[in-house]
Structure formats: structure tokens, C-alpha cells
């Protein structure tokens, strides 16, 4: 029995800042001090507060160490784990208040969160099935197989009001009901772990922190619809997730929780991994299934829907990782418990990957209906450097921008659609006054142009033409007619594309046109980029009356565009400098260097 547990975050964020080296060093130090039988070192999944990684939490005290370095490990071992003196300087400073240490759950970042899908992330060792079982893992599968009929399982899902967390928000129970209603000799259960939105890492964190929950939920789905085979389609760019999933599958086999005659009920279920090569379109359900079959990942028209003809032309259900992560708890705690969270039409919680201009970059899970303001200002800790909130982008390349005027809208599927964005899988990128909305629209469109599979014309050519127009606008070559033309083209692409990729690709353009038309007009009419992002519209200049003539900017300028003039401002001792705009490459080094704020762009 260990007296103390040290949890080291092994999520992707912390791993990239060497948390695994920290775990190694910890084990080494503990062994050297003879504490390795008393203190247990566990590598967990993501804690969510990625901005402060690498993260280490010591229980039973619950001390939350942030930004730990390998060099800090001997001090933590000697002071804290050996002598019981918490190393206050390394604690997450929000947990330290008037010399007392408060619980992590009382900090602004965690207090408003409600962890359902992420409940095991940062708690269990994802590579140990016993840890998962200790937290009631596989109990839901046991309950379903021994106490419930498939119809009851589906009814529970319907009653819970769970909707697909991949973005579209289709009721999960309904999907299962359709698949269960189709007779076939073979049916399939698939898991969409092909998370592709830029800046989104919710599914990745669930897979890395709690892989067994996905396996358990897929087996439950298999029982409900009458399938014996499952596939997880996960992108190969998630090596940690792939590794932990494979370990989890092997362990579940060893315990007989996958395979034949599970719990002695005669129910058979097996799961195979399929690695995706990272094509964004393969996150679309029909393309994903085509890819599992070993063919080129391209979508096909629906109907027939996958519940009728899916993988290998058999009835198939496909759910997202986060959807699955909710299911075992719905079974154990009941549909009413789940339906008690959230809004009228969107039940439960939603995980968001917070990114962009925000202090607490990381992973948060909040009940549906939480306002954007709560997420950004309270949980997210606001915007760095006192800048002003401009917009939040949800739904990645399929979503839109939510301006400041809608900060108080309760977030759920339907409200987001109503304000021109969408839930998407949960990426939430915060933008401040330094972000140019035309540039943002261009960024996402570049992504969809790259990722369009090319099968249908509206998407392949339409998005390309749209991008060309945006590009012209950011170069100051746009016209007012072009804005109207763009809007028409957007609506055409939406209406005519084959799959979700094309149907949603114009959303970033449409929503920025809707809320930030003045910025587009500034680019087109005034040839100015108000946020100072679009390089072609920028000009750098030195305000000569503010220039002290120190010459720092001239030294930093990589192209030698800054030279001294013969003008000395009143009250200054040295002559001012000026920028030769024909040589200037607009890198911004001069602005960053000037101590007197004498350099301006615009």
C-alpha cells in the first residue's frame, strides 16, 4: 500500500514539455531515497490546465505543482515526499491564498467545470485497467449485459437526451434505434477518433487519459444494436492515443471484457484499431467508413445512411469519442441524472479545447448552457496583456465566429446555430483586437481548400475561388461587388456540396461577413487592416517627434530599412530615424524593440 500518489500529466501538452522525463526522474530519486515502496508515481491523462504544464499533483495533500522542471524533482522528493513540507514556490499560485493552500477544485479554472466525459482524465493511469475498474469501470457493461435488454439500453439513451458530440448533434439513441431496427447478419460499431479541427484536442485527451471508457461504451453499443465487431478510426498523428488504446484493448482481452462470452452472457464483442493518415475529410462518416474498408477516403451521398448501409454495406453506427465517454455513466447513474444537466434541447456537458488569446489554454468541461463569458473570463482566466475580447471561433473550419455582443448566449447546439456558428467538436479559439477577421476567415478557408477531397465540384472549385477572393481582399485588391459575390458563392457551396466538409466550409466566411463586415469594408475601401495583420496593407513609420534617436530599431532591422535623418525633435538630443517603406519587409522587429513607442503600423 502506497501512502502517497504522485500524478504526473502524460497528456500530449505536458509530454511535449518533458513530463515523462520528470516521471522518470521522480522514480529514480524515490528509489535513491528508499521511498519507492511508499510513494507511487502515476502517469495520467490530461488535467486540462495545459497552459501551466508540466503538471504534477501529489495526493493525499492534493498539492498542484505547475510548470515543473526536471531540476525541481529532487527538491520535491526531499522536501515534500520525504519531510512533508510542500514546495510552495512551485504550486499553482491560484491555490495559494493568504499562506493557506486551497483545494484545486476551488480555483477559478476548475470550480465552474463539471467533469463527466473527462472524469478519469488526470485521475487514473490510462495504461492500467485496474485503475479504470476501480472507478466503476466496466460496471456499466456488466449492468447492461446482465440486467438490461437492448431495447432498454436504447430507451435509456433516448431518455438521456445525449446528442452526438462530434458536432452535428444528432440524438445518439435515435441513431442506435435505427441501426437496431435493421436486420442483418453482421452489424458494426465504429468510433470516430479522427479529430481534425485545428486547435481541437478533446478526443485526443479522452483517448490518452481514459481509453477504456471508449471500449466499454462501444461494447454497450454493440449489445444495443446487435453488433459483434467494432472499429476505432484514430489518426496516426496521435501516437500516444494509439499506443494507449492498443494497451487498453489488450488488457480488456486479457480480462475477458472484450472477446467471447463476456460476463458469461454469451455476448461477443471485439474491437480493432484503424489508423487514419490524417485527411480531414475522413472525419466525415461515409468517408471514414470507406477508409476503414481500405479504399480512398472519399464521402458518398446519403441516403442510404450508415444505420442502413454503412461499413461493408452493413448497418453501422458511428459515434464520436466524447459521445462514447458519456455513455457508461448514463447507464450507471441513469438517464434522468444526465438529462438534469444542460439546457432543454442539449443535455449533459461539453468539453472544449480552449486556445488562442486566452490565459488558461487547456481543456474544460462545462454543462451545456454555460455562457461564453463564463468560459472565457472565469474559467479561461481572460485575455492576456489586458487586451479586449473580439470574437471566439467555435467549430473549427466548419464553424463561425461569435462576436462580443453574443458573449452571454448560453452555449448549446441550437443557440450556436442561431448565431451563425456551430458547436463542432469543441475547439474554441479566442481572438482579441490584434486578430484580423478577414485573415481568420482566410486561414480556415486555406485549411478547407487543402483538405477538400476533390470529389464534388462545389467544394473543390468553389472553396478555391472563395479563397482567391479573400486573398485579394487581404492584399487591398478587393471590391465591394466582390463581397456580395462571395456571399452568393458561400451559399451555393453550402447548398450543393456532397458532404459536411463542403457544406460547412463557407461558415467562417459567412459569419465574419455577418458580424465584422466593417473590417472587410476597411480592407476593400480604405485599404487598411484595422488589426494590423494583413501585411500588404500595412505601413511602418516612425513618429519623429517621439524618437529619441537611440538607433536600436536600426540595429534590429534585418534589411537595413531604417536610417538616421537630420531632424532632431524639440527636447531630444539626437536626430530621429525613419523607415524606408520600399525596403521594409514589415516584420515588426522595430516595434518590438522601441522603448519609446515611437514606431507605428497601420
Amino acid at each position, binding site marked *: *500500500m502506497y501512502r502517497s500518489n504522485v500524478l504526473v500529466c502524460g497528456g500530449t501538452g505536458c509530454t511535449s514539455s518533458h513530463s515523462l522525463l520528470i516521471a522518470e526522474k521522480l522514480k529514480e530519486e524515490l528509489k535513491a531515497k528508499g521511498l519507492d515502496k511508499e510513494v507511487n508515481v502515476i502517469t495520467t491523462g490530461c488535467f486540462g490546465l495545459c497552459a501551466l504544464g508540466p503538471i504534477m499533483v501529489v495526493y493525499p495533500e492534493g498539492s498542484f505543482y505547475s510548470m515543473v522542471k526536471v531540476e525541481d524533482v529532487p527538491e520535491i522528493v526531499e522536501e515534500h515526499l520525504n519531510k512533508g513540507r510542500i514546495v510552495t514556490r512551485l504550486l499553482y499560485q491560484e491555490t495559494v491564498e493568504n499562506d493557506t493552500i486551497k483545494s484545486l477544485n476551488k480555483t477559478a479554472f476548475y470550480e465552474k467545470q463539471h467533469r463527466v466525459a473527462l472524469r478519469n482524465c488526470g485521475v487514473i493511469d490510462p495504461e492500467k485497467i485496474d485503475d479504470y475498474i476501480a472507478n466503476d469501470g466496466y460496471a456499466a457493461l456488466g449492468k447492461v449485459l446482465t440486467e438490461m435488454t437492448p431495447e432498454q439500453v436504447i430507451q435509456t439513451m433516448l431518455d438521456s437526451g445525449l446528442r452526438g458530440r462530434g458536432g452535428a448533434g444528432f440524438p445518439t439513441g435515435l441513431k442506435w434505434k435505427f441501426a437496431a431496427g435493421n436486420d442483418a447478419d453482421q452489424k458494426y460499431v465504429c468510433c470516430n477518433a479522427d479529430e481534425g479541427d485545428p486547435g481541437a484536442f478533446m478526443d485526443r485527451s479522452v483517448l490518452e487519459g481514459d481509453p477504456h471508457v471508449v471500449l466499454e461504451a462501444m461494447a454497450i453499443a454493440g449489445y444495443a444494436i446487435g453488433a459483434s465487431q467494432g472499429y476505432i478510426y484514430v489518426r496516426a498523428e496521435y501516437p500516444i492515443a494509439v499506443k494507449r488504446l492498443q494497451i487498453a484493448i489488450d488488457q480488456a482481452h486479457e*480480462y475477458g471484457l472484450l472477446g467471447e462470452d463476456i460476463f458469461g452472457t454469451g455476448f461477443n464483442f471485439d474491437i480493432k484499431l484503424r489508423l487514419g493518415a490524417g485527411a480531414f475529410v475522413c472525419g466525415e462518416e461515409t468517408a471514414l467508413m470507406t477508409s476503414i474498408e481500405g479504399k480512398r477516403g472519399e464521402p458518398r451521398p446519403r441516403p442510404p445512411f450508415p444505420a442502413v448501409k454503412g461499413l461493408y454495406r452493413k448497418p453501422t453506427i458511428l459515434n464520436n469519442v466524447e459521445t462514447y465517454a458519456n455513455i457508461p455513466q448514463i447507464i450507471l447513474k441513469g438517464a434522468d441524472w444526465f438529462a438534469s444537466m444542460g439546457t432543454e434541447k442539449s443535455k449533459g456537458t461539453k468539453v472544449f479545447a480552449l486556445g488562442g488569446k486566452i490565459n488558461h489554454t487547456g481543456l474544460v468541461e462545462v454543462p451545456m448552457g454555460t455562457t461564453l463569458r463564463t468560459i472565457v473570463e472565469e474559467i479561461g482566466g481572460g485575455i492576456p496583456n489586458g487586451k479586449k475580447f473580439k470574437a471566439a471561433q467555435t467549430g473549427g473550419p466548419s464553424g463561425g465566429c461569435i462576436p462580443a455582443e453574443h458573449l452571454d448566449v448560453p452555449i448549446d447546439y441550437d443557440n450556436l446555430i442561431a448565431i451563425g456558428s456551430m458547436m463542432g467538436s469543441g475547439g474554441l479559439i479566442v481572438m482579441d483586437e490584434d486578430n484580423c477577421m478577414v485573415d481568420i476567415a482566410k486561414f480556415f478557408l486555406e485549411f478547407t481548400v487543402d483538405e477538400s477531397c476533390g470529389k464534388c465540384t462545389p467544394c473543390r472549385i468553389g472553396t478555391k475561388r472563395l479563397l482567391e477572393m479573400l486573398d485579394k481582399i487581404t492584399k487591398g485588391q478587393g471590391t465591394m461587388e466582390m463581397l456580395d459575390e462571395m456571399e452568393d458563392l458561400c451559399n451555393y457551396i453550402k447548398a450543393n456540396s456532397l458532404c459536411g466538409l463542403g457544406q460547412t466550409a463557407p461558415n467562417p466566411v459567412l459569419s465574419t461577413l455577418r458580424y465584422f463586415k466593417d473590417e472587410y469594408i476597411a480592407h476593400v475601401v480604405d485599404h487598411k487592416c484595422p488589426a494590423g495583420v494583413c501585411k500588404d496593407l500595412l505601413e511602418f513609420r516612425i513618429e519623429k517627434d517621439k524618437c529619441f534617436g537611440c538607433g536600436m530599431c536600426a540595429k534590429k532591422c534585418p534589411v537595413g530599412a531604417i536610417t538616421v535623418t537630420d531632424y532632431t525633435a524639440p527636447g531630444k538630443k539626437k536626430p530621429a530615424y525613419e523607415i524606408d517603406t520600399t525596403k521594409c519587409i514589415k516584420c515588426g522587429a522595430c516595434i518590438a524593440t522601441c522603448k519609446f513607442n515611437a514606431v507605428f503600423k497601420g
Partner: protein
Amino acid sequence: MKSLAELQAIRDRARAQIELRQENPNAAKVLVGMATCGIAAGARPVLNAFTEEIAKRGLTKDVTVTQTGCIGICQYEPVVEVEVPGQEKVTYVKVAPEMVPRIVNDHLVNHNVVTEYTIGAIK
């Protein structure tokens, strides 16, 4: 896995370790003095004895065992403080591993302070 009972057995076995990772504000606290004086007087085996005994009795959720620094009565080390919520803190002195099962049983389970081990019993 052929039965729910098997799953339950694994769950119970693994439960104690997980419970250590959940904060319970109402848990009783066992604080073992682990400054240099405490360690020199043999506090480490005492600390481990508490951990073992509490796990054995399935109390990991209700009792947290942690270290604390020197509380200034070095001649009486190993010193152990037991705080049961709603009751006054009790200080046990010169604690040896053999005394631990009784403290856990009498004090933490049955709420009877083991008076003869406390600092008040010292003559």
C-alpha cells in the same frame, strides 16, 4: 471475466489506491511529524504502519495520512496528530508501529481516544 463478482473483486482491490487521489474535505486526518527529529526517532515506519492499517480496514476514503513538519516537541517524537472532524485534535507521542492498530481501531473507527498514548499521559 465470467461474472460481475469477478469485476467487483478487482474493483475493491484497486479502489484504495484511487481513493487516495480524491479530496475529501470531511476526512479525518493523521499527521505524522516527519521533520529531521521525527525521521531520526523512527517516524517513517509509523507513517507506513498507518497507511497499511487504514488500507487494510478500507478506510482510505475517510482518513488521510500525511506528513507534517516539526511541532516543537522533539523529545517526544515520533509525534502523531489525529484530527477527527468536529472533535479536538489529539496528539500522540513516542508512537511505535505496534501502537498504530490500536489508535486506528479505537480512535479513528470507534472515536475513543487512546489516552495512555497521548501527550497528556506523559509524566
